[in-house]
């Protein structure tokens, strides 16, 4: 069945008793045992909850995974995955990384002797050099956030397999509608489902999808033991969001490409980072491994002084953290999402004080262009007047 159909039908045939086309929200923590030693399959909702289970099965199905696990946030999903590792283990990680992941690795996991090296994950030679006796996994974000660097998943996964490492792919930005890393050889996919999968900036959630029986079992154990699970209300809201994923992604892509092209031609803009633009270094790989583009991209202004007034003059586009919602958001990574990454690393990857990240929503493209255009004009006037 095509993915659009599977998305629209999430949970629609899971409640045979009533036939409800939306799976019920089981706001129950405990489940009665029919007899001692017998279980309905549900005992305690941290271990397994009916509403969460329907979401987890749907998520696993979309990524062609063997198991799905829903967590209280994207970071909780990452924490649960990282609990696979032990003292002395080492990870190879995308250089241009989400600030929260960097913080988790450097401020928390480092206290347990779990180390990470940051590298351009397209550079196999560089990764080869970073390997230690303790290396256990490669963590890729592709596209990266915010600079939209593309990694060849198949190439890295094949290399990792040859070394006996796990390949973990953060698929938050493209979603299984556009990219399915497990089909390209990855072992674990992680989502901040708060973003496109939820799609409405209303649910905080994370998802883990695993390939292989042993890994799935291990992840289930950790999911239950650490207990950072998603509640039933949010599980339902996430499924509700996922039903429109295909439509939303199509519109996000259309709007973001138009917006990127418009900004590329704007005289106040120095550079636009969008994999759909032919000059983007990851353009060809992206075209090969995914079936489309996400709704976010970033751009660099020529003059840092324009940033603050642009953000102030926006009327329609919200200035906020997060991405992937139906409403357009503009983020200033250097002080928001990437504030926890040291300035030296930020500068190395290009997250500087002129960089803005645009999460393009599903509003009409002409209104978005008009709003940003007016804000840039007003900003330019201010700095010229100053």
């Amino acid at each position, binding site marked *: 069945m095509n993915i659009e159909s599977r998305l629209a039908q999430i949970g629609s045939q899971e409640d045979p008793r009533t036939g409800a086309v939306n799976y019920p929200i089981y706001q129950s923590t405990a489940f009665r045992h029919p007899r001692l*030693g017998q279980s309905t399959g549900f005992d305690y909702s941290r271990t397994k*909850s009916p509403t969460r289970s329907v979401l987890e099965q749907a998520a696993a199905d979309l990524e062609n995974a063997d198991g799905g696990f829903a967590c209280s946030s994207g*970071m909780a999903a990452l924490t649960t995955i990282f609990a696979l590792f032990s003292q002395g283990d080492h990870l190879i990680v995308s250089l241009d990384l989400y600030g*929260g992941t960097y913080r988790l690795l450097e401020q928390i996991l480092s206290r347990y002797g779990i180390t990470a090296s940051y590298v351009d994950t397209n550079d196999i030679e560089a990764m080869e050099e970073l390997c230690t006796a303790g290396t256990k996994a490669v963590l890729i974000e592709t596209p990266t956030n915010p600079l939209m660097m593309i990694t060849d998943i198949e190439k890295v996964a094949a290399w990792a397999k040859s070394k006996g490492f796990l390949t973990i792919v953060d698929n938050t930005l493209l979603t299984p509608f556009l990219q399915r890393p497990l089909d390209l050889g990855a072992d674990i996919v992680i989502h901040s489902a708060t973003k496109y999968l939820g799609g409405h900036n209303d649910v905080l959630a994370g998802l883990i999808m695993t390939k292989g029986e042993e890994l799935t079992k291990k992840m289930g154990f950790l999911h239950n033991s*650490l207990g*950072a699970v998603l509640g039933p209300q949010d599980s339902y809201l996430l499924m509700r969001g996922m039903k429109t994923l295909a439509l939303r992604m199509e519109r996000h892509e259309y709007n973001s490409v138009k917006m990127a092209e418009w900004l590329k031609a704007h005289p106040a803009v120095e550079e636009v980072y969008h994999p759909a633009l032919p000059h983007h270094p990851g353009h060809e790989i992206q075209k090969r491994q995914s079936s489309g583009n996400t709704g976010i991209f970033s751009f660099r202004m020529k003059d840092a002084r324009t940033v603050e007034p642009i953000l102030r003059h926006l009327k329609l586009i919200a200035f906020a953290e997060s991405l992937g919602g139906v409403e357009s958001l503009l983020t200033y990574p250097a002080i928001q999402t990437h504030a926890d990454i040291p300035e030296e690393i930020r500068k190395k990857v290009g997250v500087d004080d002129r960089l803005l990240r645009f999460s393009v929503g599903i509003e009409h493209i002409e209104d978005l262009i008009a709003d940003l255009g007016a804000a840039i004009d007003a900003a330019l006037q201010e700095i010229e007047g100053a």
Partner: protein
Amino acid sequence: MANSEQDFSTKLIHFGKEIDKTTGASSVPIYQASTFHHFDLDNPPAHDYSRSGNPTREALEEYIAVLEGGARGFAFASGMAAISTAFLLLSAGDHVVVTEDVYGGTYRLLTTVLNRLNIDSTFVDMTDFEQVKMALKPNTKAVFMETPSNPTLKITDIAEIAAWSKELGLLTMLDNTFMTPYHQRPIELGVDIVIHSATKFLSGHSDVLAGLIVTADESLGRRVKQLQNGLGTVLSAQESWLLMRGMKTLQVRMEASEKGAAKLAAWLQAHPGVEKVYYPGLKDHPRGDIHAKQSKGFGAVVSFDVGSGERARKMLGKVKLPIVAVSLGAVESILSYPAMMSHAAMPREVRHARGITDGLVRYSVGLEDIDDLIRDLEQALDI
């Protein structure tokens, strides 16, 4: 507004954020938002991303801090998410002394996940202070208590352990799930961190999975906040709201269930088919006096041993009123079989050594009429 003069029952209703400032609504709004607009780049909003701070969750966090008399409160996706987060205050190479009949999930976390991160633990009978002292190692950093413990309701002398720990510079953590702040406020007895599986009595309706942490002081609060945000183990807005709704009736629920539990314990003690009854309110409880010193009540959980696994199974098959399930602390009575449920994660020999025998069952008394519950149990024990 809550102040320290007010009675606990008043604080339960007027904890400080009970009225929405914008609309006057009598219940905290459910902020189902993951992100927040920055109206001004230089003056960021109080909340910018819900993992870092959500107004609904924040109201709950202030609520539990007021009730426990602590500095800061934090809400988590489950009791285990709270416990996982609390233990990550420790680093590789650290050692923690833990009460031996700790909840099975905590035991599993320490022995299968945290051990791999080189956090070392020793399980001791905390009713014996000498054992606690003997477990001390040069790298001991913390003591984890659970009192009354689950399911054999052993009592740890909180003030004694807390004072000793403070002298040695150890962090003290206490799982206060069974007593709730209505009965027992460990921070007032010198404990640094109080943890709850709020899924139980605080929420009280078997409908919310949640965990809470309260820290005694601000600096510990800042460290927990960093972990809560960094690990992302937070409670959602919907569940935060439901938990607050449950907490408003904590005292009346606790009072009613406890009255029933006391009657049930006395009845069980007189029953010829019951070998042993565990309830801190019974006169012959070995450390009932210590419990009475540190807690205002005895709680609503009664454990009892019916002699054998076979008898336990038969009885569980015959009861009609309580639900046979894991969990506890709800409006409906819940009968659990620790050997196969809450403590299934514990190896059999360890379990037996801790008194969690095959004949042991745990009764969490709900709000049903106690005479109905006793009549039901009477017919079930007729085996």
